[in-house]
């Protein structure tokens, strides 16, 4: 399939049509590492080629009346997730033997992500205290609820990958030849209907689900990783249809440039929101780009 050794990252996030109608902002957020090649403008032009380490974080602000600052909560979630993960993988794991890496990441990262997010929220609250009208909606037992958001994180390095998920949203991996797609983290059976876990919950770190893969060889690396908020997957009538979209993305990605892929993503997500739930929709891809069309 002409896969490259280098990762490309392309992501896009669109404001849901329902949000446009009601005047709500886009409450999703996306961030990745290494950062975009060009200065980003909101959620536009989020693409970058990477060396060995690639990180992609997506968050969905809950958006309910009690979560009135969830757009900010989602933005802080992806920022802190990328920063904490980068520090742990690049500095914290130095000297940790390969067999111990999984335990080290699995045990540390959820706590550090949650604590870092809460610290960021506290800082935000100091800079922007709740206004008088907002105070009426604040959960008196847990002011972090105002910023409630999910978190999905995909990380891929030279010889391992891992996935971390708190709350709803989707991650899909495409690998093998012929390429097959699968979900690295099983859907949370404890959640029903639109229930979701959240960074604002007590014990949020314990609710993170985690999956780690060690590549047995170079060819074992995935061809593509898709991370999206549920606004995207909910537009598919079947789960199979959603899973099938990932290899399609890979085929298209290998036939085009990241710029073209990025433009298409924006269009597809817009159509998804218009024809589907009307929710915000965010999707990020890490893939082994063809390399000849950069």
């Amino acid at each position: 399939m002409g896969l490259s050794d280098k990762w490309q990252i392309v992501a896009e996030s669109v404001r849901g049509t329902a949000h446009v109608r009601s005047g709500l902002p886009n409450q999703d957020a996306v961030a990745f590492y290494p950062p975009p090649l060009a200065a980003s403008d909101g959620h536009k032009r989020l693409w970058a080629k990477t060396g060995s380490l690639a990180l992609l974080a997506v968050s969905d602000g809950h958006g309910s009346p009690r979560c009135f600052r969830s757009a900010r909560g989602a933005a802080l979630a992806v920022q802190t997730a990328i920063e904490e993960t980068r520090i742990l993988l690049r500095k914290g794991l130095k000297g940790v033997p390969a067999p111990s890496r999984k335990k080290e990441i699995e045990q540390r990262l959820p706590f550090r992500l949650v604590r870092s997010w809460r610290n960021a929220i506290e800082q935000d609250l100091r800079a922007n205290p709740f206004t008088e009208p907002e105070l009426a909606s604040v959960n008196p037992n847990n002011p972090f609820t105002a910023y409630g958001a999910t978190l999905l994180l995909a990380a891929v390095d030279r010889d391992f990958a891992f996935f971390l998920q708190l709350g709803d949203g989707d991650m899909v991996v495409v690998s093998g030849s012929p390429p097959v797609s699968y979900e690295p983290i099983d859907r949370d059976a404890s959640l029903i209907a639109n229930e979701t876990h959240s960074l604002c919950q007590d014990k949020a770190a314990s609710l993170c689900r985690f999956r780690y893969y060690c590549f047995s060889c170079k060819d074992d690396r995935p061809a593509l990783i898709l991370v999206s908020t549920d606004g995207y997957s909910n537009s598919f009538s079947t789960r199979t249809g959603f899973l099938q979209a990932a290899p399609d993305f890979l085929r298209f990605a290998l036939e085009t440039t990241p710029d073209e892929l990025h433009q298409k993503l924006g269009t597809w997500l817009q159509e998804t929101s218009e024809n589907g739930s009307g929710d915000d929709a965010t999707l990020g891809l890490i893939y082994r780009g063809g390399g000849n069309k950069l």
Partner: protein
Amino acid sequence: MTGLFKIGDTVSVTGCGSCEVVSHVGGGGQGEVYRVRWNGHDYAMKWYHSASATQRQRDILQELLRIGTPGPDFLWPLELVDRKGTPGFGYLMPLRPANFKSIEALMAGRINPSFLSLIDAAINLVKAFRQLHTKGLCYRDISFGNAFFDPATGGVLVCDNDNIGASNAAYTGILGTPDFMAPELVLGKAKPNIKTDLHSLAVLLFYLLHVGHPLMGRRVLSIKCWDAAARIRLFGEAPQFIFDPVSRANEAVDLREDTTGETGGMALTYWRLYPTKLRDVFTKAFTHGLSAPGARMTELEWLGALSDLRNRIFRCACQTTNFFEGDAADDTVRPACWRCKKPLHRPWLLRVGSDTVVLNADSRLYNHHFRNSAAGFCDFSTALAEMTQNPGDPNVWGLRNLGKDKWVVTAQDGALIDIEPGRAIPLRQGAKIGFGLSEGVII
């Protein structure tokens, strides 16, 4: 990321035919695990990544196969496996039954076992490691990823046994999981040995009973980057118990301050529930035991402490487990149930030897209570006595003899009454019961 093997692949079992891959179970730092079918039965097959598939690892496995399992609580290697054209090697072991859960599941609140199950799991873990240590072997990598337990019964299974070797052996493989490593190992001043295992075991027991790490308290909050320097400081150079009786520098942080629970918030809750005797042994393990390997709690000391904890289980009328704090000479009981907050009634107690056993409606007594046999210490398989209700008056409780030998009760007037097997004695304060080699008093 689809794994090295596909469903239906066959793998040679050294000298014993071949097994067929049924499914991919998971992957870890060292290798991948598959469910395989061999001779009509399902097993787990661990296959090492090339970096871990060393000759030294193969030698360790061959030695483990030669030694054989120390007991039924170990998912011990059964056979080596190889495959032509596939780099590395692996081994077969029994599959872990689905009812055995990880301590991570406990940490995440996905399972909610009773205190009794947790205590029994702790006892069974200690017994398993005692079996290993009495063979001169050490585990080297005890952590909560390597031990599973049945939340319903407290049964345990120790897995990932492929790093086990002789105590103090020259060894360059896994030194342990940093959080569980003894300080002298973290500092590179010792090779894995039974004493370093005892530290790891104490950490594991603390995790199991307190849902938190004994050395991860307030200091964790000041760690900017969780790197080697942080790990060495926290677990090697300056480890400090989160309930250190002298210094609060690394104290457990209340959940209201650190909601993640990583810095001892949950441990703080549990610590307050347990009796002083248990708190004392953990304090010993994580104060003197940190710097002096010889001062660490031995397996027998743990069994004594955990057996005592089990004896102190004390159920409130709301069925919540509390722990009886006083001793036989002291009527002190917790003033109120920690859950329903209602005053606790004084329980029936049996003082036998140095033990004080709370007699709950479902209490049972075992060999070690009667000191009949040192070999059966903490063996809960055969009860020798149980609580029973008078069928004519449910308010009257008695102790039924389930053993093969009669008991001799000394009545208040000095008369001796035989309690034959199957018969029961009504509970009366001051009643003395001769249980063969030992005598108990109802108080």
